[in-house]
């Protein structure tokens, strides 16, 4: 009963503190909102919106394929993707990239068409790009490759057919060669009409959109932030033990025949209540304002409860390491930040072209990593095994920490 009284008193104090409110609610929502803005560009759409990629093309091609490429890219179908400028000369095209007017310059060689239509010739298309960028130039490279591959394929078909026929003493006529090309292009475009050849699916079996929906990205980010700040709240709540010690109220509490374990339990309870409120408010906010899909409601509730326990225990343990408020400040500022960011580093994989798979295990060094793993598994609809193992892992980790923290505080006040 006394423990509950202490917890309620702590809650009352915390919800009057600008600092606590800022860290519990304002910062995580602010950051998610920031990402919603960054990726949503302030638009209402749920897809990531990209501006057309500024591209310079210098076309030296003596034949028609260069022109065809320019016509395709200049068409309405590509106007959302490419902002095309036809350069007067090579130097101008390169200069535009050097001066950041364009992300990439595509230099079509003079012998482009000749190479494509005549078997046995070779040439190269240069993509001159800004090295600080990867996305736009990457898209352009795959567009050029797609176009060139169709031409290459037709050319190679002709080479194969002519060589094989030649080896058997026959020569293909001009009409036969043209028919081959036509057949090749029509087969390729027929298969292109069928839709994409490669679909992505999450391990939980969910289809992944070509441009991953902004909501799922926001979900990952807000989930990460929520856990990060829940652990911060845990430390903040336990830090009030040191604040009370410094203000003399802790000694006075001992003077009221309140045993240390009751006080520590009260603090733990306060932390848990604060974290629970925080997680419920943040998940609800994420769902209602950002439209985040958190996954199955029952599992989400389990996650909230377990993370509440986890963050409260971790906070108690972390603060038990501090001698005074100053050290606790460092633990909160640095310790919680480092472990928190390590724990949510899976989320940072978002924007890595070559993510390091090992990070998934490294995050498990810190309890935040287990919580993140559980939430992501629930959001992605992964196997029950993974979800429950993550939750169990977090519980075990938390149990160890809370015992250590409890014992350390008990000893200190004995």
């Amino acid at each position, binding site marked *: 009963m*006394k423990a509950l*009284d*202490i917890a309620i*008193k702590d809650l*009352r*104090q915390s919800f*009057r*503190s600008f600092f606590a409110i800022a860290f519990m609610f304002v910062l995580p929502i602010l950051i998610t909102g920031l990402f919603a803005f960054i990726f949503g560009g302030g638009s209402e759409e749920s897809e990531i919106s990209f501006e057309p990629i500024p591209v310079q093309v210098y076309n030296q091609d003596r034949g028609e394929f260069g022109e065809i490429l320019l016509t395709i890219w200049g068409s309405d179908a590509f106007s959302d993707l490419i902002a095309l400028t036809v350069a007067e000369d090579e130097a101008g095209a390169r200069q535009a990239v050097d001066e950041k007017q364009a992300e990439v310059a595509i230099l079509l060689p003079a012998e482009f068409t000749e190479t494509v239509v005549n078997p046995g010739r070779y040439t190269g298309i240069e993509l001159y790009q800004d090295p600080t960028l990867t996305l736009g130039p990457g898209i352009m490279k795959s567009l050029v490759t797609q176009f060139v591959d169709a031409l290459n394929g037709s050319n190679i078909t002709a080479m194969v057919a002519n060589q094989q026929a030649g080896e058997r003493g026959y020569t293909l006529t001009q009409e036969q060669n043209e028919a081959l090309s036509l057949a090749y292009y029509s087969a390729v475009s027929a298969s292109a009409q069928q839709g994409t050849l490669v679909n992505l699916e999450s391990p939980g079996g969910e289809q992944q959109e070509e441009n991953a929906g902004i909501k799922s990205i926001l979900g990952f980010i807000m989930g990460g932030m929520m856990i990060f700040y829940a652990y911060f709240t845990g430390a903040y709540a336990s830090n009030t033990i040191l604040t009370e010690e410094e*203000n*003399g*109220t802790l*000694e*006075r*509490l*001992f*003077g*009221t*025949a*309140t*045993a240390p374990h009751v006080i520590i339990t009260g603090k733990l309870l306060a932390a848990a209540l604060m974290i629970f409120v925080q997680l419920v408010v943040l998940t609800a906010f994420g769902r209602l304002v950002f439209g985040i899909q958190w996954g199955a409601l029952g599992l989400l509730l389990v996650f909230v409860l377990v993370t509440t326990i986890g963050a409260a225990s971790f906070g108690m343990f972390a603060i038990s390491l501090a001698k005074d408020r100053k050290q606790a400040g460092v633990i909160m500022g640095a310790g919680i930040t480092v472990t928190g960011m390590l724990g949510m580093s899976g989320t940072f994989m978002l924007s890595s072209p070559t993510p390091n798979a090992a990070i998934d295990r490294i995050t498990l060094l810190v309890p935040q990593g287990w919580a993140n793993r559980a939430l992501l598994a629930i959001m992605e609809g992964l196997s029950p095994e993974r979800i429950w193992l993550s939750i169990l892992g977090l519980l075990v980790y938390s149990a160890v920490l809370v015992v250590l923290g409890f014992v350390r505080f008990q000893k200190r006040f004995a």
Partner: protein
Amino acid sequence: MAKELAIEIKDLHRYYQDIKAVQGVSLQIEAGTVFSLLGPNGAGKSTTISVISGLLRPTEGDAEIFGKSIISQANQAKQHIGVVPQEVALYQDLTGRENLAFWGKMYGLRGAKLEARIGEILEIIELTDRQKDKVEKYSGGMKRRLNIGVALLHQPDIVIMDEPTVGIDPQSRRKILESVKALNEQGMTVLYTTHYMEEAQELSDRIAIMDHGKVIAEGTHNELVRIVGELDRVELTFGAEIDGKLDNWSQLPGIKSVTTDTTAAALLVDDSDQALPHLFEAAARDHLKIISVAVYEPNLETVFLHLTGRALRE
């Protein structure tokens, strides 16, 4: 028939590593009395109080509160005590009423009884009008009063006050002293620590003088003063540094002891009227110009000086 003992301290020792804060203190405090611990800063008063309140475990010895050991029956013992800490120990971001409600619960009060007590305490400490303000908005004196009020919530038999008047204005100080008297009149036992001898003198039935972790004298005010007999205390201030020139003044007729500072001296004398001419003469001989002279009748300050060779506030 002997009165019931509220507090009995038995050969109490408390060490912090090498520092012996309390060494062998034994005291008996009768129920219904005001008992003061008097001594300079660092004498061991606060440590003694902390042990009695169950906040520190004694290194040796024990203390009993109405017969309950503070070591083996701590919780029962604590039920009898209300402690007023030296520093204001309150939640500054809660209101006065919220503080009282929380501490009341910590003392085990609940429901209507708690509400009634809060109302009574607010009346006693004269904060009824300001009960809904946050403590951080209170003046120093108001905080002190609330600090005391919290300790009275559970109607303890004993109130322990650790220097409750340090650093406050005379008006607030007076209010606190009056409240101590009022509490005592209601039958409460008060254990009071101070380094102001006037407070000890005004409030106490009995006084213990502490120095260097030990009780060097104990008794009623009159009993203590009798230790120094009829000695008067003379304080002299000189126009220049003394520089050891007073070393042989204790041999002057009627002079019992001399303690010196750079430009001042305190002397215990049999009779100030007879001693003063000798002192002026000696000063003239030693080329010391006397700027001021003060003569005091025997009091606790004199006792402390007599027992330790030092002034109480050094």
